């Protein structure tokens, strides 16, 4: 007992440096609590102050991230803290930047939206801030425990936000569906994690990655009469599939996408915007950490043992490939027939999740740059399009239906132009940012030189063309259709300015993407992401992809 005491008193639990590592999160947490307290103190008319306080919290957090970053660069650009619970490297910092920008825009959208709904409350903003804290920890966590808890912190806040409009039955239904399926998928994820822990004996991703080659070893013990094979690969693959399933749910990949259209439609539009970018990007950040940092050895074919006729097994690249193909196809086809804008964008966001998965599969620098860059661009353009929908919201008109857009060009020409820019970017048309992102994602696949991956890229390109149909339907309604109603818009100056900046940024990235590519590259170069070359493997044995799944290799 005494020895233990001695040992613990020697621990430097919290040093200044480690606190610095989580300073942005600490600031957000403090402001989240401040928002709660302010909400109780302020009179009804002044509730909006809470929003501005939260926004300034996000701003301060950004500043602290900016101060933190150069420090990190000086210290070999990666820092481990809290007993290897978090790793703040370029990857984490870029994602944190993304979440903070997303949160800032979401808060601005919310001010206008909640005004229209008459639901201006302080808890709403503190819930947003706390969920951003969860997201930021998701990006920097490198331990199964901290990953899971930060995931739940984000998820639970968002469940509540989805059901925030208590008087709206759709909102209730959406929250219920999202919560039940989300809790279930968290359970599946946790189950997978627990098995990985059992197999590798550690919750730390680096240690897991180091232990996996041992787990993959096949022990064949032959005695005179019996031959027993100790093969843990199936168990490991099963746990990998469980973890992947949990993550697929969070990013809304088919077949775990069922909740998305309902949740997106029912949630307050500002929250739909927030969850479609924040939750998705954070889940991708976690996905990347789990699979590229923790399970890199499970990516491609897992070698068997020909002499003892133990078959080789496909790795997660195959799983992700199949899922992303289905997701892209299903998401785009599903969007074709939607008339509700939020539902349509839900399907579109499903397909975007599919595109982003492609970068993880590619496994090379280009692919990883694509993932970060695309999520960054997606954050801005998707918030932009939802911002436009919120700008349309006015008395008696939700702005959700595609017919609400009819003849918008006459009512609000600048809003129409901005909306067009965001739509073109979502569709991936060249002068906009969306094109650059897709270019990297698809380019990464082609670069691998693997025929199956190239076919996957071609499928994605074809489906991108299909997606243009429904994006251009918006344009048709805005420019060509006659006005169906004449209620004037209720413009908000802050919202308009924010959207304008977002639209300009989208065009700017399309024209001069260097800065954004640079920071994505920094993130993609993080040592925590293991790259992989399919070519090297091909020399030895062909990669098993969809067509040959399950067939034992020679």
């Amino acid at each position, binding site marked *: *007992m005494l020895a*233990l005491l001695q040992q*613990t008193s020697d*621990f430097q*639990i*919290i040093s200044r440096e480690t606190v610095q590592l*989580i300073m942005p999160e600490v600031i957000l*947490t403090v402001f989240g609590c401040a928002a*709660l307290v302010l909400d109780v103190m302020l009179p009804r008319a002044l509730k909006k102050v809470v929003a501005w306080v939260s926004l300034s919290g996000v701003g301060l957090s950004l500043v602290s991230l900016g101060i933190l970053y150069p420090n990190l660069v000086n210290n070999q650009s990666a820092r481990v*803290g*809290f*007993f290897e*619970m*978090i790793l703040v490297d370029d990857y984490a910092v870029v994602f944190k930047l993304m979440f903070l920008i997303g949160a800032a825009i979401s808060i601005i959208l919310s001010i206008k939206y909640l005004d229209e709904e008459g639901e201006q*409350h302080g*808890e709403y903003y*503190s*819930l947003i801030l*706390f969920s951003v*804290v*969860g997201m930021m*920890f998701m990006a920097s966590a490198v*331990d199964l*425990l*901290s990953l899971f*808890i*930060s995931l*739940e*912190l984000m998820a*639970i*806040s968002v*469940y*509540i936000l989805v*059901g*925030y409009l*208590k*008087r709206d039955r759709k909102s209730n239904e959406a929250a219920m569906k999202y919560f039940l399926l989300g809790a279930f998928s968290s359970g599946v994820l946790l189950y997978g994690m627990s098995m990985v822990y059992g197999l590798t004996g550690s919750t730390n991703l680096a240690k897991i990655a180091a232990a996996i080659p041992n787990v993959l070893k096949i022990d064949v013990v032959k005695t005179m009469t019996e031959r027993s094979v100790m093969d843990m690969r199936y168990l490991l693959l099963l746990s990998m599939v469980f973890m992947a399933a949990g993550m697929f749910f969070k990013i809304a990949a088919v077949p775990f996408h069922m909740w998305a259209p309902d949740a997106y439609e029912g949630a307050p539009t500002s929250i739909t915007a927030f969850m479609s970018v924040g939750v998705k990007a954070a889940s991708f950040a976690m996905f990347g950490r789990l699979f590229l940092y923790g399970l890199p050895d499970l990516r491609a074919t897992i070698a068997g043992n020909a002499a003892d006729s133990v078959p080789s097994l496909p790795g997660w690249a195959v799983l992700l490939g199949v899922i992303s193909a289905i997701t892209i196809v299903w998401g785009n086809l599903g969007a074709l027939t939607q008339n509700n804008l939020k539902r349509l964008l839900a399907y579109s966001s499903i397909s975007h999740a599919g595109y982003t998965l492609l970068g993880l599969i590619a496994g090379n620098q280009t692919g990883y740059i694509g993932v970060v860059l695309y999520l960054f661009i997606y954050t801005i353009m998707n918030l932009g399009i939802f911002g436009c929908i919120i700008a349309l919201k006015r008395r008696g008109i939700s702005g959700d239906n595609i017919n609400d857009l009819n003849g918008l060009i006459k009512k609000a020409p600048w809003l129409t132009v901005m909306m067009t820019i965001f739509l073109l970017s979502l569709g991936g048309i060249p002068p906009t940012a969306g094109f650059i992102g897709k270019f990297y994602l698809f380019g990464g696949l082609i670069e691998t030189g693997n025929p199956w991956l190239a076919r996957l890229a071609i499928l994605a390109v074809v489906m991108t063309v299909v997606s243009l149909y429904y994006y251009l339907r918006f344009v048709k309604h805005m420019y060509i259709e006659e006005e169906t109603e004449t209620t004037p818009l209720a413009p908000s100056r802050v919202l308009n300015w924010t959207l304008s900046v977002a639209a300009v940024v989208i065009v700017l990235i399309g024209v001069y993407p260097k800065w954004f590519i640079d920071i994505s590259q920094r993130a993609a170069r993080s040592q925590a992401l293991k790259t992989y070359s399919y070519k090297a493997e091909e020399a030895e044995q062909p990669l098993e992809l969809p067509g040959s799944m399950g067939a034992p290799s020679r």
Partner: protein
Amino acid sequence: MEKAVFIIFAIVAVGSALNLIAQRNPLYSALSLIGTLASLSALYVTLHAQFIAAMQIIVYAGAIMVLFVFVIMLLNTPEDHPEIEKQQWLRYLAIPFAAVLIGEALYVFREIRNITLPAQGEAEHAIGTTWSIGTNLFTQYLLPFEATSVLILMAIIGAIVLARREES
């Protein structure tokens, strides 16, 4: 001695767990669950995890189950409710699943004889104490611990937001 304690409480735990699913009255089910939890806590003591044992009682039996019992009592469901199982085919689905589970259990029982557990040292005895749990919680697991506190705060706020009466 330890073995006798284990056997007694294991039987109670399994017995009340079976009773939990066999009972039609939800209140009896809840009470059997308390029995299971309490005997599990006794099993924790035999594993030298006294802190976990106490927490098991305080948190599960003393707090969560009280809520369950409250809800059941206040809803006061009639005891002889009609058959609500409309999906009869689910019953037949249960048979293969049960078979798989039993097979699995048998397999584990067969294999477990070949495994010799390492002898317990003094260090293992200290794992379950309040001291070592507290130490771990505030060093190794400090960050997840603090994040969990924010998580719980969040859940409380959520419950209040969703359950609050609308002021008109």
